[in-house]
């Protein structure tokens, strides 16, 4: 099937308004939230129903055309980066909330539904959807599921995987399967849902997702504490968690981040070497008691200023400053590279020190903003793409930071995924055997490797992984053999 025929076939499935094929238009899809990698897809298709997704995938399977799913395109690891001569399946028109089932605490949505819409939908009933990535006003539930996204409240409430109850998935061969439970909390058999969540679009396309919603906590209190440097702030973090408190959120920002945020959204943060935002929620009495303890720990760690949010407006201001942090970097630097590593909480101080040294060595600024409670770092390497060589230098520095995380017993990514960006680091963390096992799982779902190929694994070895578009062997096509 040549390109013209493919366009025609897709138009038959989707109507002319569902197929993007002009070069200029395709270019707007050449990258996601990470602009470092760009590939122009052959076609972009915009399905409006699960049936259409199934037909699209079936066509791709029959013709051996690789495809990539895309939600809102805010991913930061190039997960939704198109493949050359492939089809990009964009799910932003599948944005219906299908079912709200308050008594069973669940909501069923299409994958293009934006994260925050779920909370909005059930707010009147006193419920909310817990995972809250900073991108929650724009990122899609499908993308959240594929990246196992987390947010500031994940320390206490867990990542997306803890809040997904089931999914309808179109597999790479066009078959539609349901994984996970229905209304009942657990289902017998292998826990495939756990494998699917966080699979970065390599195991199939989710077309319907059942989410768990939670009752809003009775009380919530938030404070902001300023410290001389990140080390002292880190001491407070250890003190709070070591004291047996599990805050709903505990976030740190360093001086450079504070500068950028002030410049952009002026939340009126104090001038400081580091700021912590600590939020507690739960039953009223417990929150009140623990809040006093948190204040005490901050004081013991020489906090220069402690601000307590007096009302929702002030709390919103604290969070506004935090959540605008990535975007605000645009105000102090032309380009930035978001790194995302996790280290054991006890290693935070050492790793931050290492990052500061690296920053000096490379002569590039690094801003730190992170989920301090679970040691999830987000160093932002600032650079200027127009200065020759600086982009490469930034990438190298970002790599060094990852190695530092690994050296200290950490991991490659906390929540942004491996995607295209970090696959080269996988061998640093995993042995060849580890990765073979992972690829065997992948092959079970996608034996022809047409579902988001070229991501996660740097050296594809199994199930006929090879670069470029997949072509089915004639014997296979004739149905004489299933797989080579």
């Amino acid at each position: 099937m040549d390109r013209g025929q493919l366009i025609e076939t897709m138009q038959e499935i989707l109507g002319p308004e569902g197929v993007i094929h002009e070069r200029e238009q395709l270019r707007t899809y050449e990258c996601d939230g990470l602009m470092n990698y760009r590939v122009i897809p052959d076609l972009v298709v915009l399905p409006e129903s699960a049936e259409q997704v199934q037909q699209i995938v079936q066509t791709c399977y029959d013709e051996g055309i690789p495809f990539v799913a895309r939600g809102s395109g805010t991913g930061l690891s190039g997960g939704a980066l198109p493949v050359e001569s492939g089809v990009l399946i964009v799910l932003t028109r599948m944005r219906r909330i299908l079912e709200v089932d308050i008594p069973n605490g669940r909501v069923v949505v299409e994958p293009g539904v934006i994260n925050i819409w779920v909370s909005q939908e059930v707010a009147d009933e006193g419920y909310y959807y817990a995972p809250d990535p900073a991108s929650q006003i724009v990122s899609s539930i499908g993308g959240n599921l594929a990246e196992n996204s987390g947010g500031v409240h994940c320390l206490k409430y867990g990542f997306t995987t803890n809040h997904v109850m089931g999914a309808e998935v179109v597999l790479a061969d066009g078959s539609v399967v349901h994984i996970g439970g229905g209304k009942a909390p657990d289902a017998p058999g292998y826990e495939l849902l756990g494998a699917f969540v966080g699979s970065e679009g390599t195991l199939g396309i989710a077309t319907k997702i059942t989410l768990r919603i939670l009752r809003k906590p009775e009380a919530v209190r938030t404070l902001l504490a300023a410290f001389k440097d990140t080390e002292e702030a880190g001491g407070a973090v250890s003190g709070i968690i070591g004291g047996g408190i599990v805050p709903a959120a505990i976030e740190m920002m360093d001086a450079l981040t504070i500068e950028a945020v002030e410049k952009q959204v002026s939340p009126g943060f104090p001038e400081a070497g580091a700021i912590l935002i600590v939020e507690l929620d739960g039953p009223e009495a417990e929150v009140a008691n623990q809040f006093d303890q948190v204040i005490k720990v901050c004081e013991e760690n020489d906090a220069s200023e402690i601000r307590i949010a007096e009302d929702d407006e002030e709390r919103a201001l604290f969070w506004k400053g935090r959540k605008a942090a990535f975007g605000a970097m645009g105000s102090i630097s032309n380009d930035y590279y978001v790194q995302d590593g996790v280290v054991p909480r006890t290693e935070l101080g050492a790793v931050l020190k290492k990052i500061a040294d690296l920053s000096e060595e490379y002569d590039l600024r690094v801003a730190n903003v992170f989920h301090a409670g679970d040691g999830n770092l987000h160093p932002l390497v600032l650079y200027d793409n127009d200065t020759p060589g600086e982009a490469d230098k930034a990438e190298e520095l970002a790599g060094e930071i990852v190695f530092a995380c690994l050296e200290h017993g950490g991991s490659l990514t906390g929540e942004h995924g491996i995607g295209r960006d970090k696959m080269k680091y996988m061998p640093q963390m995993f042995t060849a055997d580890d990765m073979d096992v992972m690829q065997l799982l992948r092959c079970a779902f996608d034996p022809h490797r047409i579902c988001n190929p070229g991501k996660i694994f740097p050296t594809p070895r199994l199930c006929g992984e090879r670069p470029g578009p997949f072509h089915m062997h004639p014997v296979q096509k004739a149905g004489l053999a299933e797989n080579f």
Partner: protein
Amino acid sequence: MTERRNPEGTTGEEAMAGAIGAGSPEDIGQSTHAASDSIQQTVGAARPESGSYMFPAFDAHHPPDKDLIDDCVHCGFCLPTCPTYVLFGEEMDSPRGRIYLMNKGLTEEPMNDEMVRHWDLCLGCMACVTACPSGVQYDKLIESTRQQVERRYERRADDKVFREMIFQFFPYPNRLRAVAAPMRLYQRFGIGDKLRRAGIMQRIPARMRAMEALLPDLPKEEKIPDLTGPLGEMRRRVGVLTGCVQRVFFSPVNAATVRVLAAEGCEVVAPKQGCCGALSTHAGREEESLDFARKTIETFDDLNLDNVIVNAAGCGSTMKEYGYLLRDDPEYAERAKAFSAKVRDVSEFLQELGPVAERNPLPVTAAYHDACHLAHAQGIRRQPRQTLKQIPGMDVKEIREAEICCGSAGIYNMIEPEPAAELGERKANNILKTGAQIIVTSNPGCMLQIQSSLKKMGRDGLPMAHPVEVLDASLRGDPVETLLDK
């Protein structure tokens, strides 16, 4: 003391809404509908093309500024408040996509039908400017892009003629008035309805139908004096812009503006004047818009004014930009800057001045609609609400999805009638949900658009007013009915 979360939403949501400049989480666009008919205008087959091709896309005269483009970090935070993204759900019709296309146009891609289509479909509502955490100045980017389009892209003949016609009428009150007279007759005898019934109207192209549907009931034009003295002690001497559309279709708003300003202690000058150039600026008609700007500066410059007061959001946002628009004009650059610094929206000015005149009660529930060129382009949200809330008895309701444009957007609803109609209906529905007795908004375009959307939905009974008309009624001690019976 421990606080409870408020019942309307979790605090996290509030914060997120705040982070994109929305008043509440409800303000963030949410469409649970499947794609709409107007989708045919973008990826679909319905849009006629001209085949014009120009490479590189931009010439050297003010191409979209690379530095401003580079401020965009591709985070996508602007997507959910962009009206066309809400309608179409694809990247090219999002701020991020449009900026991406500008960037590609700088070096890699031509200016052709595909590129221009997506810039044309932008409403210029500036919701993306509010939403962007990275401070991208989309207003400047789209303005220079549109100028390039007008210069370098050859539109189809019918498209060109239609646009030209708009610009031959709207900026000129005398011409508008000349056609307004026959329109009055036309309305009185219900000619539009008769044509529609006879099926003739359906055959007239969509754009003409859209224009016809927008025609408001023409009030008798209220003339305003050249000079009005202050009531009591003089606090300021101000000029007022009487506008083009405002003057012909909404002259009572101008009259109310003058009365309110006088009541608050201003000497009000209303010089003979032309168009401020807002419509031309937003359409990329550079020379024309600069001419209008220079003339407007001339009109007000020697009058020894403290401020120039504007009651139409679109005009105000452009006049505040004169300094930027005329930056290359050695003779006017400085004057324009000084002039822009004096320009105030009427609600903004009234709050700056502080109320002195006595407000009489007006027990009425009003829905306040944010005009994009006031809320997004000028950042004025609080002042008009305050102006209303200072009136005893007023209950001001917020409209869901306040951030999303009503589809009026200057001349947009005439040249892109399909998406505009969908946005209008969406807005009208959200307004009706408030249960308010009256709609209050600060822009003539929004009024026309909302009125015609309500009419289409069979709900044209709902009265509408500008904040100064409401204030005027309160200052004069008029009963609520005078507002509601308008």
